[in-house]
């Protein structure tokens, strides 16, 4: 007679999914995806309506204060379209985008990983919390000054500033998410012999994501802003550099055009990338809403 743990021993023999079944389920998934995409575009119209309201207010401000203080939206768009013809937009935008995205990925990656470790380990949390609080306490502008000294006028200053200014947000989100995981569900998973990795994937991660997405959204937004700020102050090209030049020339429509471009990038990264991913992973949440899950 052997002493065995219930998690070992043979499972239900795995059978290969039959081909027609797989085809049908793939078809269903395709239809689902198309439906979901349609809904997403449709909800985009509502967002667009909000943006147009903002544009109307901008136009009103322009009519009150005149072109020198606030150029008209249309004029700005024309300048922006003009910029699209030249080479400097592509160069500046790609520089800024590369720095902002690198900064975002590093900040979100480091913050999430450290936060998750702190959430699992009480000792790690005790050590890391004060460090993060100190880093958070240093104003971003001070990081720019320090990064300028360390990196000079290169993109590194912008990236470092983004990372230091925004990784605490992901850290706090991941820490909170892991610390508030449902231990009862974890015990349920353990009772079926689920490994630590399986339990993380199926029990902790879905819960953690609802803490991470708001943190990541804030991080990507501030990544663009901080990058432009660092570029402007460190004179290291990018959109920030172009802004500095336009300001020196007192070319207000050009300033506005660059600002609109940065805002567009921030909007695209939030509504075009992060939000669709969030919607896909958190479909179950809408099941609890009064109008139910959309099928």
């Amino acid at each position: 007679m052997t002493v065995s743990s219930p998690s070992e021993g043979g499972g239900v023999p795995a059978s290969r999914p039959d081909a027609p079944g797989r085809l049908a389920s793939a078809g269903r998934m395709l239809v689902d995806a198309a439906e979901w995409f349609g809904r997403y575009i449709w909800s985009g119209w509502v967002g667009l309506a909000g943006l147009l309201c903002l544009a109307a207010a901008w136009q009103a401000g322009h009519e009150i204060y005149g072109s020198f203080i606030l150029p008209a939206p249309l004029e700005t768009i024309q300048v922006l379209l003009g910029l699209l013809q030249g080479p400097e937009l592509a160069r500046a935008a790609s520089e800024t985008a590369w720095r902002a995205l690198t900064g975002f990925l590093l900040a979100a990656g480091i913050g999430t990983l450290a936060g998750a470790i702190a959430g699992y380990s009480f000792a790690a949390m005790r050590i890391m919390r004060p460090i993060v609080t100190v880093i958070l306490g240093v104003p971003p502008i001070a990081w720019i000054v320090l990064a300028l000294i360390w990196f000079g006028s290169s993109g590194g200053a912008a990236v470092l500033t983004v990372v230091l200014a925004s990784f605490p947000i992901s850290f706090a989100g991941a820490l909170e998410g892991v610390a508030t995981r449902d231990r009862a569900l974890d015990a349920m998973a353990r009772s079926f012999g689920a490994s630590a990795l399986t339990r993380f994937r199926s029990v902790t991660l879905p819960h953690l994501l609802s803490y991470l997405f708001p943190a990541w959204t804030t991080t990507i937004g501030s990544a663009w802003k901080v990058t432009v700020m660092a570029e402007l102050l460190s004179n290291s090209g990018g959109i920030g550099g172009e802004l500095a030049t336009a300001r020196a020339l007192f070319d207000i429509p050009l300033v506005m055009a660059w600002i609109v471009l940065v805002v567009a990038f921030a909007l695209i990264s939030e509504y075009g990338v992060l939000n669709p991913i969030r919607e896909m992973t958190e479909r179950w949440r809408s099941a609890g809403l009064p109008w139910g899950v959309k099928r």
Partner: protein
Amino acid sequence: MMPHEKAKLVLQDVGHSWLGRTVFEGFDLVLRPGEVVALVGPSGCGKTTILQIAAGLVEPLRGRVYRNYRRHAVVFQEPRLLPWLTTRDNIAYGLKVSGCAASRRHAIAAARALEVGLDPEDLTKYPVELSGGMRQRAAVARALAVEPDVVFFDEPFTAVDVGLRRVLQDLVIAAAARAHFSALFVTHDLAEAVRVAHRLIVLSAIDGRVVDQRIIAGEPGTRDNRAIFDIVESWSHEAVFAELFDADRRVSA
């Protein structure tokens, strides 16, 4: 070395303390194949702790646990469904953990859902869209889906109404008879214990001692309401059950 050759599960001289406070000492249990053992006792006497130790969720501080089976499943007091999975995926969760292919586990989940009285359209719903009773049905289906050799029930039906409780008890009795699994069934309710179990263990509130063990006459499922009522009625006057009913009165007061 397993002390009892045929037993599925043996707890030998098990004791446990939480934060230095001893809950129980020297607890022995032998669970034979196909046997349903009910564990009754007043609130806080350590029933859940014993069940968690038996199910391997908690390491006992003293004593040994011997297991001689392939797999087990636990039905908790709360449904403990994963809110981000549909009913189908929740029922199939244990199968997924053990590496069963998607099409096969979906088929098994659908069959089990039907057995516990869920409708096919409930399969695509998320737990928030189910009633409390439906969630507990799904939790029972999830446990039975892995074809366990031993099932641990921790007061599984305390939160459901009396009518549904009967239905779910009958379901467990039928499943145990069909699949021939052994079960440890923790409950507060003497009538429930008498309905579902072969054997009864009564724990004391004071030190978690076993104050009594008895065989319940007849097979589960063959006892009618009258017989169950008579057994409960005659036992409830005995001293060993006094504590149980006292505690119940304390809770309801």
